């Protein structure tokens, strides 16, 4: 019975979030004290709803691409054919993480122009690393007896991968996806410095016009989104872990 309180809090957060995105004017009195000189208390240079949707779209697209590439790479380097690439891929993951998102963003601009594309590239590159690392961990720490048993019943390499290895590694892979999504949600706001339509626009508009209410709105929406998505993915992970009987 200890579970109902956190669930209730999350529901309240979700309802408040949706209400705020759809009808931000209702909340004007709360943000009014943060503004000076009669500045608008609620972001008025665009719809919060469409910015939120675009923000989520960019993150979802980048994460999906990252999942496909990272899991495929992890599968490749854990097969006998790709074993040669395993040590290198590990050090690459390490090196990749040292690239600051702003640098990736700024360097992608000359190649693909301003807007959503550099943001997608930066989020994709950033999303790759946690997912790859976790997929690698998941696929290399499988319980040996199970893998042996799969081999023993005459499964082909492909069958073993699809029916045994990937399902067993799924909870760990999902943990990587969760990490990557939470990082991407926050990083996507930086994309607005190169004119991507994300919630970062609200924050940056606030920074430039010295309007704290905007900064807080943008920051809060992203933070609440991140917490809710983090919790949803954690639940999915627990579900996957229960199905495989593997403790996370």
């Amino acid at each position, binding site marked *: 019975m200890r579970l109902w309180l956190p669930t209730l809090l999350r529901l309240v957060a979700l309802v408040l979030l949706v209400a705020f995105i759809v009808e931000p004017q209702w909340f004007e009195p709360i943000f009014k004290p943060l503004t000076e000189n009669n500045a608008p208390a609620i972001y008025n240079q665009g719809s919060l709803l469409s910015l939120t949707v675009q923000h989520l779209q960019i993150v979802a697209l980048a994460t999906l691409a990252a999942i496909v590439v990272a899991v495929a790479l992890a599968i490749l380097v854990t097969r006998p054919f790709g074993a040669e690439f395993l040590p290198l891929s590990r050090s690459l993951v390490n090196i990749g993480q040292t690239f600051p998102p702003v640098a990736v963003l700024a360097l992608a601009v000359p190649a693909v122009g301003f807007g959503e594309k550099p943001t997608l590239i930066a989020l994709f590159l950033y999303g790759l690393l946690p997912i790859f690392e976790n997929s690698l961990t998941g696929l290399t720490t499988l319980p040996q007896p199970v893998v042996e048993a799969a081999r023993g019943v005459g499964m082909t390499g492909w069958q073993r991968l699809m029916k045994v290895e990937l399902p067993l590694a799924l909870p760990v892979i999902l943990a990587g996806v969760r990490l990557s999504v939470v990082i991407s949600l*926050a990083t996507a706001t930086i994309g607005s410095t190169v004119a991507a339509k994300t919630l970062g626009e609200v924050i940056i508009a606030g920074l430039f016009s010295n309007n704290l209410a905007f900064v807080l709105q943008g920051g809060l929406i992203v933070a609440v989104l991140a917490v809710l998505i983090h919790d949803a993915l954690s639940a999915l992970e627990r579900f996957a872990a229960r199905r495989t009987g593997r403790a996370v």
Partner: protein
Amino acid sequence: MTLRLDKLGVVIAAIVAYGALAAPFATFRANRIMSGEARGILEALPGWAGVLLLFILAIAGIAALIKTPALVRLGAAAAALVALAVLIGVAALHLTPEGNSFARVSPASGFWLMLFAFALAAADALTRLQLTPLARIGALAIVVAAIWLLLALGGWDGLSILKEYANRADSFWAEAGKHVTLALGSLAAAIVVGIPLGVLCHRVDGLRDAVLNVLNMVQTIPSIALFGLLIAPLGWIALNVPGAAAIGIRGIGTAPAFVALFLYSLLPVVANTVVGLGGVPRAANDAARGMGMTDGQRLFKVEFPLAFPVILTGIRIVLVQNIGLATIAVLIGGGGFGVFVFQGIGQTAMDLVLLGAVPTVALAFAAAVILDATIELAERAKGGVA
């Protein structure tokens, strides 16, 4: 004797072949914001140098392609990297018309692709050599020295990024100082606060979940928002707390950036301290208690030494992350290399973006190599003790 192909080598040779033969080596622009004209290797370099570069690239590419000992691969990749680094400077001088200070020459996609391919080859060879931590730091020092030498000798003076630097040499070092101060200072503050907090969380059960949850929440706030949100409270402190303004606390500038970086740094430090202390074998603790050690003695003589590598891992995460995040501090007037990145984005002057981005990446990379090596050393020292 049959020649066997190296799988990674096939990828590297393909990238090098494309970069050398199909992609442009350098870009020439009449001034810094004009769009560029691409030049291939033979067009960009004086006759002898172009042929020499193609020759070195071919040899190094073949050394990567077939199975060769790791040392040979490393040597070949290093030779190719040195040749690329020196000759891009030669190309810049060669392409710039005599006495023209507006023209800009910058490396083009072919150069970057080949640099990436041979860096990959070198990284692969270094991984295969399984260098000791000290040797890795030594390798880093050699690379730094080589780059410094090339800069000091003026080998790259013709390149556009250094022309941007020449126009801003003073502010470059000032911003570099701010950047490093922000990244290291907030890390130091996070260590001073985070480790005791971690110890407390480890000892007091109820506290752990609460503290870690709050710090987790902080991480979900986007960095630019957190920077912005700190403007108000710090501005208020500066106005209302006597002496605060005198020590540099202000609403905009370095103070909110410092506090934001500090807040982001806390989670990895605290979490890794908790995990590290939690991983100390029960037997070690029991033995220490049995010897009559006090709680304080046990902490400093048993738990800290054993948890040290894990705590250090947290510090590595924080340092690399802070060096990157400090680039955003400029949005609230905090300075740092971000100044050049955002000025460059604003003026669509990519050389200026590079002037901010390259040192940031280099700093983060060097910090990662040094701390990774230190962590490994600490683990060995621990292995010797336990």
